């Protein structure tokens, strides 16, 4: 299976800036992490990939066939999990899944089995008869994941799938996505870098409507070697660091001083400086800030 984006652009109105600016990319089975700040164009790109928004130019093909021409056939292969949003308050979790199964065109018998399995997977079996308005944020997130999986999609597009989940659920969902990704294209848009750091085949970093960097997490991290430092500074030195415009990745208390993690080409000159191993958050910070 190959999902190909060919020079996709999107301009919402004449004269407006490009929301998506000439993106070309080929997805093959595996997990892809899509990172980028708010307004980077992630949601626009996902709407185009789910065939909810026509691109201004360019095309998307699935195994060589344009998705617009495939219509329902493309959507049969698609699982989409939107960002957390209003749901049908009057539906119970189980009713919502049956409704989504109807929308996905599943036969009744198949729907019954897959709904049972999916409710177990997302750990909502006991809460299936509760109304959605009584669900917590995490439960709503899980029911949204469940609906995306109902049709056993070949392409799974997920927007912030672990937002609102507690650490245990976050790990559980992450592991599940990793498990099912062997024969699926999974695209996860997120702000939580750790969600995609360990399960992604490739990471795509978007900003200003473009993919500004892509590659395996290891490759991206390797590129950052020698650019991440920790320095133990006083409060005054910290203020001086901030004033210098250096990219600060984190601050922790170190006795009566502060341990500041910075991302920079050249080591900082203030405090007790040591080079540290970079992570994906450093990469993200380096690329988009």
């Amino acid at each position, binding site marked *: 299976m190959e999902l190909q984006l060919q020079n996709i652009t999107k301009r919402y109105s004449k004269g407006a800036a490009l929301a998506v600016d000439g993106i070309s990319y080929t997805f093959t089975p595996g997990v892809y992490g899509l990172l980028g700040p708010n307004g980077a164009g992630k949601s626009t790109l996902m709407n185009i990939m789910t065939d909810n928004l026509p691109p201004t130019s360019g095309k998307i093909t699935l195994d060589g066939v344009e998705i617009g021409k495939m219509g329902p056939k493309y959507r049969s292969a698609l699982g989409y999990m939107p960002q957390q949003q209003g*749901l*049908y308050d009057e539906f119970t979790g189980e009713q919502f899944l*049956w409704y989504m199964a109807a929308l996905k065109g599943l*036969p009744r018998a198949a*729907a019954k089995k897959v709904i049972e399995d999916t409710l177990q997977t997302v750990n909502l079996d006991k809460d299936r008869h509760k109304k959605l308005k009584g669900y917590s944020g995490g439960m709503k997130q899980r029911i949204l994941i469940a609906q995306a999986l109902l049709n056993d999609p070949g392409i799974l597009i997920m927007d912030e799938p672990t937002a609102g989940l507690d650490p245990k659920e976050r790990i559980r969902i992450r592991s599940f996505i990793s498990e099912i990704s062997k024969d699926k294209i999974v695209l996860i848009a997120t702000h939580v870098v750790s969600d995609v750091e360990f399960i992604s085949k490739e990471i795509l970093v978007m900003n200003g409507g473009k993919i500004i960097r892509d590659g395996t997490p290891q490759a991206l991290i390797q590129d950052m070697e020698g650019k991440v430092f920790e320095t133990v500074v006083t409060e005054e030195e910290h203020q001086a660091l901030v004033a210098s415009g250096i990219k600060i990745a984190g601050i922790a208390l170190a006795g009566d001083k502060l341990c500041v993690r910075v991302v920079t080409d050249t080591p900082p000159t203030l405090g007790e400086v040591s080079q540290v191993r970079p992570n994906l958050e450093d990469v993200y910070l380096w690329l988009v800030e």
Partner: protein
Amino acid sequence: MRIYGYELIKLRKRSTLWVTAVLLVLGCLVLCFITQPGERLASLQQEEEDFFHYEMVDGVPVLVIQDSEQQIQDWEAYRESYGVFINEMADRVDKMSSTSLFGKQSGFAYRNLQKTQLDYASFAGTELRYGPESGVRAYNDFSGGILFTLAFLALLMYYVLYDERGQNLLLLLKGTRNGHGALAAAKLGAMLSGTALYVLVQEAATLGYFAVAHGFGDLTRTAQSVSIFRNCVLHITLGQALILTVLARIGVALVLAAFLYLVGTVVRSEAAAVVCAGGILAGEFFLSVAINAGSTLCFLKFLNPFYSWKMSGALAEYQNINVFGFPVGKGIAMLIVGAAAVVLFAGFGMASFSVRYQVKTASRFGGLMLWIRQHTAGLFHTVSLLWFETYKLLIGQKKILVLVLLLAWGYSEASAVSGVQSFARPADAAYQYYMNRLSGPVTEESMAWLDQEQQRMEDLHRQLQELAESGATETEMMYLSYTIGNEINLYEEGLQRVVHQVEWMKTLPGGLSGKYLVNETALTNRWYDTETDARLWLIGSLIAVFLLSGIRTGDEKRRMTTLLASTRNGRERLDKMRHRLALVLTLAVFIVSELRILILYSRAGAFRVLGQKLCWFSGGIYGAGISIGVLLLVIFLLKGLSFLAVCLGTETLTKATKNATVTLLIGGGIVIAVYIVVLAFHTDITAAVLNLLY
């Protein structure tokens, strides 16, 4: 005060609340209208003139006479009886006091007698003036307004108390400095002021309706001039009585609002709150009708919102309540108990809001609902999109209430024309009488019976002639000529219409053979009743717009469209199902809105003469050779098409605006505009079709 202001702003932004409020006021007016049968209304408008009408009793027309002279005589009798009632009060009290039952001076019965005498003493010599009473009577008789007020209150309670909690906003608010007492007071204030405003508007509209439809006459005459105020012990004019009634209704509504506020803060589930409040109010209603006025428990009847809502209950009827052996006037008791109830309900409600009303937690009712959902889950094990779309609309958006209202409206429309038939003119009544006998195929038997009737009329004329020539006394002459003359007046013109109809049919090709006698008057009256047709279309169309406006917009509001559209059936097929649902609902509305018309056609005997040609109508007023059946079918189809247009128009609006309120406002506006145009040109679909065939 600022918190209260923000509560009002929040309510103002709830478009569903105020749109529903407007619809409720309109619904109340419609109920006012349909609970007043047309013939009665027409009669009442002629109150200052002589009038009479005819009712069909066991298939025979019966004259019902009521003329202004009769009314004046009745009123004069009332005035005399009122004078006697007041002037002899002291004597009656003296006599009753001498009996053992009332004689004990430390007892309630004795004190009640003395108080009654005292209360009425100042009414000796009260000047009573004659004037029309029908408006006041109709306003007094119409007590359906309390149901609309309760419906508004339930919605207001939901928006003031439950909506924010459902959105988990209440914890945020209650975490602030003024989030307990001040917020509770602000919410109570919003409920009370919202209620007062709604009742004021509703009652102003209702009074306006009765003023236009019946008139109240001179508002400066004493209230006791109207016989329903005979027992009133307030020195007020009729105008003041109407104002006091509106104020009393606002007071009753405030008590109910405070009660619902308490229920809403104590009961955790909104559904349970509605059931709980509904149960208590149903009990109150039962007490208001079931308890006898003379019972020791009569205070449960009188100190009751349903009793106090009625004008006569609040102002006109005289009653003292036994309070530890002392009589207390019903009005005073109502005021004290009402005020105390508001204070108590509000106090406990505010305390409950502060202490326990914050997050929605599992309740027993919630557990019961969960159990029900568990055991009915199988109903949803379906992949029918139509089923889910119906559920989303009717249950999710609670539009099932609109369907219930639709059925109630259909029932009331149908029942309004299912009772005794009434006619303004004797000829119409007699014609109906003959048509009940003759409508259908022309047969030898029916013609023979018609001949007999003609013979009977001739005999009556001959009797009248012979009477004039006989030597009968003047009294006999008067009596017999009155009796015979009435009989002739009643039947002759109607009979002549039938005879004329038969004569016309004889001139048609084939003579009477294979022809039908049709109730032409009933059918033409029905066909040219543009006001009724337009009104039914207006109400039906507004209901259809209201129902259909939620079909697509609900998903837009919840931002579900992207998710739905990314599924295999989430576009064309989903749209097709929604369209199918819209058609089914429109069809249901159309059928209900046509119920009254169908009953009227049935009553006119139209279904027995469907094969009758339109050109066979007397005088050949219609040129077309089509049958009545075809005509009715065409009219029915065209009306159906007009509803289909409403359906498609509303669907287009929902797609274009993606907003239910905007759809409702635009769609409702267009429907009302069409209604006004129809009335202005006095041509609805039926009239337009007939004009083409004329």
